[in-house]
């Protein structure tokens, strides 16, 4: 049985965020951004989004990642080379517009979700 006090609480980064989005940054790179609503939520995203997490979610080497933490905008931005070049045979997302989903679906640790 879920605890009634936390049943409606945000569970994923996507629940907490104003928007989690992804897009090409040119044909050879892609970029992810988590737009958080306030400082508290930003701190959750800032702690959650680590090179290890992105590496695991997107199957990319941690050394290839550029992570920008922008507290004044409550944004964490992550850029890395596209594992599959835009439009090439195995690319299934021309604009990289749906790659945010694994990040958005990442469960926020209960202690920080609240």
């Amino acid at each position, binding site marked *: 049985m879920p605890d009634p006090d936390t049943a409606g609480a945000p569970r994923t980064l996507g629940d907490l965020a104003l928007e989690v989005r992804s897009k090409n940054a040119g*044909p*050879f790179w892609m*970029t992810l951004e988590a737009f958080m609503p306030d400082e508290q939520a930003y701190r959750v995203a800032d702690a959650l989004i680590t090179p290890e997490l992105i590496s695991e979610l997107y199957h990319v080497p941690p050394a*290839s990642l*550029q992570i920008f933490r922008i507290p004044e*905008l409550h944004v964490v*931005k992550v850029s890395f080379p596209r594992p599959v070049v835009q*439009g090439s*045979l195995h690319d*299934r997302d021309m604009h990289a517009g749906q790659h945010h989903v694994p990040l958005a679906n990442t469960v926020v640790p209960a202690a920080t979700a609240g």
Partner: protein
Amino acid sequence: MPDQCGPPDSVGILVPSGMLGAGFSPGTITRGISLGADVITVDGGSTDSGPYYLGTGTAKTTERAVRRDLRLLLAAACSAGIPLVVGSCGTGGTDSGVNWVAGLVDAICVEDGLDLTIAKIFSEQQADRLITKLERGRIHALPPSAPLDAATLARCTHIAAMMGHEPIEQALRAGANVVLAGRATDTAVSAAFALMRGMPPGLTWHAAKIIECGGQCTTDPRSGGVFARIDHGGFTIEPLDPDAACTPTSVAAHMLYETVSPYTMREPGGTIAVADAVYTAVDERIVRVEGSRFEPAEQYTVKLEGAAITGYETVSFAGIRDPQVLRSIDEWAGFFTKTLTERVETVLEPATPAEVGVMLLVNAEDQETATAISKLADPLLLHLPLPAMHYLPSFAFATSPAHIDRGAAYEFVLNHVVEVDSPTEMFRLEMTNA
């Protein structure tokens, strides 16, 4: 454009939309002109829709949509006596794209009685000339790409070089009222006129980056046009839709959009550095930006874009509702792939309880082979049972024939820069009086 005695106090730039052919309301232009626009700039292309457009040298936008936008822009530029700059003509910025837009401009000028001097700037590159530069060690890879080889250049159906502001400025100085540029950096299109007039490079490049996507930097990204006024200490930016607003957050956040880094952006002649920029609300819908810098590079470099054919494709779809197959859809997909052994890729979206769509994409060295393999797959897509099934299911084809030939498929193969001795040496300027 005759030189002024000195730089003006400010330069106003009207961007009607994020892309020529995207459409905008006539009121957008009226409002921008009334704010004192000194130039109208609009981007005509991008790589964002994929390699097909550069690969084929054809435009993503339709002739009707582009003609409609051009007619309004040419009339406004002509009556206000200000230049119009269009960048990356015809989506990929190929010579065919520049000539296509130029043909539309010429026809409108004749129909509407406009007397304008038109400049065409071509940016398409021949592989053999680039191979010479490659052999001289003047072409370098950008991360994450490998060093270039001559064979990759030779594979490209079209190669475009991205111009900076200099070829556009050259055309404006030569007296062009309308500049139709091949592939250009999105920022150079909007920066060229203001730089020519002596506005500070850091502020001009940053303003150009903010406005290049039209309403993307506003609270309503669908709102369309924006207006920037650059002076010697900063720039202000406001939406041309009276119902939209620019806020310090909406403007600052635009440096995130489709960029690797939110703080720096490389142009041919240097780097836009905005980490120290300060964004201040002038009122509820106008933002002022100060503190942006431009750091000149030691070596001027021009970025290349090239698309090559990866093969020829045919696509087939089938719908499956058979519960027994749905329960084992991964097994069916694996079995399908195994059964259709030659050059087959299945792409499966996560299965729904009721139905899955199967897309078979065949990529082969020529269209005849791609079609032949898809025909081989046809009875499998229609009837393939799981090994344990004791009956022959018939799945759902939406169309007859069930396959769709896609023709040549393309990929981007160039992510490299060329060292040049002059910013204009790779671009060819043609001036015509319409």
